[in-house]
């Protein structure tokens, strides 16, 4: 306490006194001399939209009190209560109205005035200036009228401001709700970690956490760093990163991801990397980037707002002048004011950003990251999607898909082959051991292992020599193939599969056919996209035959094989000519340039692609099945923006006509405008009710595959050895 007593308030720079108020704001600890300073600071500096809302509320409450009183007193004025004998009271009543209206106008008008001044300094006119001009004219006319004993319009001045502020409050509340969705994603930079150093706990910013440090995480808190659990046991929710909303059990030795929420027990975590370099922190930066960009529609809307303000000002002036020829001056001014108020293009400016933010937040919560709000709009209008094959539609590593035998048992083949191949690190060798393991077959204890580079492996089992490798190895050994196996080998190689010959007893006994298998979720994603009217193309550098087979399995019609990266880009250009816009889906690792070249580059499971700015949309690992849902969200966002714009423009146009013809009172016009903004917010809020991506279909497929795997049905010719994703 004594230390803090010497500090200064972060807002007003006065000494803090004995009881300073401390708050964590944007990752740094701030001290304030009073709550008022804290709020003011947050309103001025804070990103927290909650603070903005609270401050607006107090203003709104007090101003509503004043305005409602003004309204009630004005009601008596309109009723003619102060006519006749009571007319001598009239100046006093006007004075009372003035006394109420002045603080109300100051309280409510200050933010509008401030905005106008800011924009005017930059040489622009924005919609706030319409409100300021309108209210100021009503207020100053009324002050003038007060001294001349004419009718006053303080009620108009204060009610217009009140209704506009009310609209702003509802807007702020909507924005706050939108940002709450994003909050866990944006929290990474401001997160505080409890670091345990030599048994002493200190709290420090996650940016200052170095690899190897011990971090304590209490139940209910977010895990701030990537690392390995060194003490404690708990269930955590990793949905921010993986998109899967279920609790995962963690025990000492298991890795944890930054951003996941610790549910049950306290954990002590040894950090495995710098706190600012976690996937969570990268996601956080990318979401923040995305939110700071403006989408093309938004830029158009902004331009419309910018040019409409001077037009509206001129229009309202002309309207007032026109009506002044036939009406008393105060009536003409009122009509001009109504035009000014009703043409305020607030709703137009609000139409796109809220919907986009909600959409980005919705996607981010399921682990899908968007780099630019424009991507959502591009995705919504998409009619053609090109897929990379290896690693995107397929698992990206070979698996045993077929076993050709010559009168021997499959178990025997796999046991011997894996007994040899377990000593090799080759991708094909690993596929063989994985296939044996999946079927619960123990590798045969081979001896005298000898690896022949470029050929295969030799060894003995029970004193009998055996070998696994390619045809060259077998011909070196002089082991023959039966005519049946030779024919199969030709067929398999023609299909583009890889081949392992397994031999013992002086001849080749079996052939293992290996291939890259499609991801279990690929066909669901393809079917989902096709049902949404997309034309799908497979682009690959691979041979025609395997590409065609994968395409047939997942259901893609058009195949372009044997493409160099440069040729892929040419195909993309051609597709773009035919179909307007093309998205490219890849793994983001080796197809970066192609992804960057597409209208929408989509990377699956690689946040590094996002960092390198090659992909505009990144799906989580194994998240290909979410792509149709992402398209749905993008389309919903676009639909919302369009309906918002249509509504805002239509409403403005109709109301403007009514106001110019003198049918709309300024107060009613302000209510109409506030209502318009609220409707835009409500329409955008409907995006929150979008259904979550439905993993049931893909889960069903996986369960099916799982049931097939353990069955020892050795007669199955085409064995599916799909590793569980």
């Amino acid at each position, binding site marked *: 306490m004594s230390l803090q007593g010497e500090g200064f308030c972060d807002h007003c720079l006065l000494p803090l006194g004995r009881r300073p108020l401390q708050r964590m704001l944007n990752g740094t600890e701030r001290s304030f001399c009073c709550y*008022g300073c804290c709020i003011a600071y947050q309103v001025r500096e804070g990103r927290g939209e909650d603070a903005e809302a609270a401050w607006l509320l*107090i203003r709104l*409450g*007090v101003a509503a009190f004043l305005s*409602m009183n003004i*309204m009630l007193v004005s009601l008596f004025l309109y009723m003619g209560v102060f006519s006749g004998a009571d007319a001598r009271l009239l100046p006093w009543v006007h004075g009372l109205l003035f006394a109420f209206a002045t603080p109300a106008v100051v309280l409510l008008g200050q933010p509008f005035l401030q905005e106008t001044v800011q924009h005017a300094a930059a040489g622009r006119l924005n919609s706030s200036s319409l409100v300021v001009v309108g209210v100021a004219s009503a207020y100053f006319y009324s002050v003038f009228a007060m001294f001349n004993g004419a009718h006053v319009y303080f009620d108009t001045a204060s009610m217009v401001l009140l209704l506009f502020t009310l609209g702003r409050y509802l807007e702020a509340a909507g924005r706050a709700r939108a940002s709450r969705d994003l909050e866990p994603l944006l929290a990474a930079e401001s997160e505080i970690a409890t670091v345990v150093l030599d048994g002493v706990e200190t709290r420090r910013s996650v940016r200052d956490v170095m690899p190897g440090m011990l971090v304590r995480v209490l139940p209910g808190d977010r895990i701030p760093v990537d690392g390995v659990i060194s003490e404690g046991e708990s269930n955590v929710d990793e949905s921010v990163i993986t998109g899967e909303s279920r609790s995962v059990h963690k025990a000492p030795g298991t890795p944890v991801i930054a951003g996941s929420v610790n549910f049950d027990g306290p954990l002590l975590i040894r950090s495995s990397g710098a706190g600012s370099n976690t996937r969570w922190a990268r996601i956080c930066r990318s979401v923040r980037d995305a939110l700071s960009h403006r989408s093309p529609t938004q830029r158009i809307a902004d331009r419309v707002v910018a040019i409409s303000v001077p037009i509206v000002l001129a229009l309202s002036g002309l309207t007032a002048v026109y009506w002044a020829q036939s009406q008393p001056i105060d009536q003409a001014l009122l009509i001009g004011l109504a035009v000014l108020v009703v043409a305020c293009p607030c709703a137009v400016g609000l139409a796109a950003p809220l919907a986009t933010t909600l959409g980005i937040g919705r996607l981010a919560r399921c682990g899908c990251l968007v780099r630019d709000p424009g991507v959502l709009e591009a995705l919504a209008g998409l009619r053609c999607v090109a897929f990379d094959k290896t690693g995107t539609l397929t698992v990206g590593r070979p698996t045993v898909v077929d076993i050709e035998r010559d009168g021997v048992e499959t178990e025997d083949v796999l046991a011997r082959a894996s007994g040899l191949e377990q000593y090799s690190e080759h991708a094909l060798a690993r596929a063989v051991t994985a296939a044996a393991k999946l079927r619960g077959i123990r590798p045969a204890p081979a001896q005298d292992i000898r690896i022949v580079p470029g050929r295969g492996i030799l060894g003995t089992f029970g004193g009998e020599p055996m070998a696994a490798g390619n045809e060259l190895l077998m011909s070196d050994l002089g082991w023959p193939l039966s005519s049946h196996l030779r024919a199969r080998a030709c067929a398999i190689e023609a299909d583009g599969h890889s081949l392992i010959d397994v031999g013992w007893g002086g001849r080749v006994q079996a052939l293992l056919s290996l291939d890259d298998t499609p991801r279990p979720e690929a066909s669901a994603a393809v079917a989902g996209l096709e049902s949404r009217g997309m034309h799908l193309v497979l682009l690959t550098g691979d041979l025609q035959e395997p590409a065609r087979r994968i395409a047939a399995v997942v259901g893609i019609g058009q195949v372009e094989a044997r493409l160099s990266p440069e040729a892929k880009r040419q195909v993309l250009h051609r597709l773009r000519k035919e179909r307007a816009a093309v998205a490219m889906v890849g793994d983001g690792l080796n197809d970066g340039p192609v992804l960057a070249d597409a209208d929408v580059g989509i990377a699956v499971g690689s946040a590094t692609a996002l960092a390198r700015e090659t992909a505009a949309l990144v799906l989580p690992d194994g998240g290909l099945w979410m792509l149709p849902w992402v398209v749905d969200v993008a389309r919903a966002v676009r639909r919302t923006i369009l309906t918002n714009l249509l509504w805002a423009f239509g409403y403005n146009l109709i109301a403007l006509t009514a106001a110019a013809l003198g049918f709309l009172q300024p107060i009613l016009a302000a209510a109409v405008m506030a209502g318009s903004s609220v409707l835009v917010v409500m329409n955008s809020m409907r995006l929150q009710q979008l259904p979550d991506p439905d993993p049931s279909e893909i889960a069903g497929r996986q369960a099916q595959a799982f049931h097939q795997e353990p069955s020892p049905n050795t007669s199955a010719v085409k064995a599916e050895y799909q590793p569980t994703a």
Partner: protein
Amino acid sequence: MTPYLVLFAAGFAGSFHCIGMCGGFACALGRDGRGQGGTVLRHLLYNTGRLTTYCFLGALAGAFGQMICTSADFSATLPLAEPIDFAQRALAIVAGLLMIMIALQFFGLLGTLHRLTAGLGGSLFAATLRKVLNVPGHATPLAFGVFNGFLPCPLVYAFLAQAASTAGAVSGFLTMAAFGLGTFPAMLMMGGIGGVLGPVWRRRGVWLAGSFILLLGLTTLGRGVLPAGMLHGDHLL
């Protein structure tokens, strides 16, 4: 003047219902750090804010009633005047029925309406009120009272129906002003002494409020249904 006295009494009785919900807010507003005077000022500001909202809503409801009964005499600012034409009768019938329904709900005889009234934007208001409560200063209780007045509440709805049936902005305002002033004593007391009142008394208060609303509802309905002369004599309502 008599009808307003009745409304005031109804408001007073009804405020025992308020203690259930808004009393909680009054308590949450709590005491002022600067002593007894500060506390009283705090709660006076809070209740003034509430009253202002009620009056404003009353005037709006009255103006709405007036809009419906366009043929009603503009200068007849005297409230609860005898029915003039069909529109006013219809309005009286609707308002009367609404009030009777609310009264029945007070007696615990009608359950569904409660859910209906509580669901109207309740969550937004709750969030709003929570935010405001945390901020110190004289503006807070006033702002808080203003928002409190907008809280969905069957009692307020009943009197707003009454205000609308008067078919005049000024008479609507006066109706709600009388009702709002009636709720003053109990709510002020609530801020000062907290939950002194036992649950038995509170239940009696709720029954009393229900009876008043039922009486008001029946007379309002009567104005719509009965021939013009019948309620003329008593001039009670």
